[in-house]
């Protein structure tokens, strides 16, 4: 057993393998190794919600502490997506004032886990696999002008947010918003076309 584990340490291990190894052995090195892979993303998310470096760093360590318990209580299919939800909910918990709302928020947190654990489905336009180009083109042409322009410039002309913002005289956040809404509308259009 020791030899086999020693041999495996030199190889790249999947998230699932590391997680299972931790669950079986309780070896903190396994969990730490797994967490290190996404710790910078956890920090970024904590910064987004807490808007304070010290608090965000504390939260990163807090999320890690939570992992120790939560990984044994949940059946985690996609660790990265699950960690994303865990981090967000941890930060939101920090933000909520201690009140009767806290109980509600805990329920929302529990619900978020079950609802979002596998993460969102990729939009066809973001996937690498081929889609029905004609159907996609038809749907793109049905978009509102601003959404259409953003989709074309971002995905077809390979322009970055800043370039698009400059060209269309928009705020960068607006560009992201148009892209998000356009993708949602495209998804609805493509799905209705498949029915």
């Amino acid at each position, binding site marked *: 057993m020791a030899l086999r584990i020693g041999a495996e340490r*030199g*190889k*790249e*291990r999947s998230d699932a393998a590391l997680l299972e190894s931790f669950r079986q052995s*309780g070896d*903190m*090195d396994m*969990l*730490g190794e797994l*967490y*290190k892979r*996404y*710790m*910078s*993303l*956890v*920090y*970024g*998310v*904590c*910064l987004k*919600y807490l*808007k304070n*470096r010290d608090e*965000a*760093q504390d939260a*990163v*360590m807090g999320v*890690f502490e939570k992992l*120790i*318990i939560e990984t*044994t209580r949940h059946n985690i299919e996609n660790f*990265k*997506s699950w*960690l*994303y939800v865990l981090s967000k909910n941890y930060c*939101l918990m920090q933000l909520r*004032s*201690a*009140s*009767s*709302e806290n109980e*509600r928020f805990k*329920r929302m947190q529990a*619900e978020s886990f079950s*609802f979002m654990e596998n*993460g*969102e489905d*990729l939009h066809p336009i*973001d996937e690498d696999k081929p889609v029905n180009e004609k159907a996609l083109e038809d749907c793109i042409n049905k978009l509102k002008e601003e959404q259409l322009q953003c989709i074309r410039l*971002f995905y077809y002309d*390979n*322009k*970055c*947010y*800043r370039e698009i913002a400059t060209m269309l005289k928009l705020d960068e*956040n607006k560009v992201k*918003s148009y*892209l998000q*809404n356009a993708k949602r509308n495209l998804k609805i259009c493509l799905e209705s076309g498949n029915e």
Partner: protein
Amino acid sequence: MSKKDIHRNKRDKEILSYLSGDMSDIQKNLFEKDMERDPFLADAVEGMSGINPSELKSDLENLSALLINKQHKRKPVYYRIAAAVVVLLGISSILLVRQLKGPELMSDNLLSAPPASKSIEQEKVVKIVEDITEQEKAPERENIDKEKALVERSKQLEKPADLQNKTVTVEAEAILLDEVLIKDEVPLVMVTDTNSGIIERKAIDLNNDIENRVAGVQVEEAKVLTESAVVSERDLNVKSVPLAAKKSLGAVYKEDIELEEVVEITATENDDRKESDSYIKASPEIGIRDFRKYIETYIQFPVEWTKSDREVVRIKFRVAADKTLSNFEIVRSSDTLFSTEAIRLIKEGPLWKPAFENGAYKEESVVLRIVFRRE
């Protein structure tokens, strides 16, 4: 170093490079496409964009060291689990004890202290204050020092800009917050007048729609409360605090919360139902705070509208179990200009989380109150 370590370092370097502006436009486009595919990455980059890249690098190195430190605390698993359980129980106990009960009760010293002044100058400005932060940190209402600090703060005024050159008089203890109501589109503040010795509840309208009146004291100007007056409850629910004998309430508004929020979720078809373990109302997926920020950022006052500088729209819609929105219905609006904009904001906005009941998502109606202000 494993391939995953190399990959992780490469990703961190990419993030730093992107945030530092060191990437070419094509590289940015490729990285942004990764963000479009990966909401975790997108959120993380958004968070990191708020700090200096050199600070970010330093923070990540610090975090790595902290993590190694934690890993090296090799305690047996059952000790760690036991410790975590104890910590969780402790946190749960503390959270159960801590509650937001509304404004701090002030000490009896307030009533016995002489009023700051009984004179009313050209305009009377009163600042109603509620120290939410103080409440959170002072679970014991009998903390006299904090109550005294609250009294002192409640006596301080910030003069609104148009009163800068006028003398104003503080009678903070005369008008104290008792209850905040949202009624018929008009935010009201229920106040208690202790100046006259009479405890009486009156409504003060913050938006000049009704005459302001406090028992025994006639306010000269309708614009009594400044725009700096804000409400304590983010959800703008009715908040009622019992007024014990010989005690008055003071309230300090948090500056970053406005009484008349730009958007307010006023009702759903199950509005009279209380949330519980088995029922949660429909709500914005990003949370109410961020949803408000979204509305505030993207709301557009119709330029063609010249009749007023402020309009309110109430709009009702259904949130389906699959998060789709439908059945938009304008409950109240002065003009289609505002109705159209309100619908646009919601349809183009963040997703909604459907109502959740007895283990399943269900369709539910939501009513939003959106306030348009000309800037």
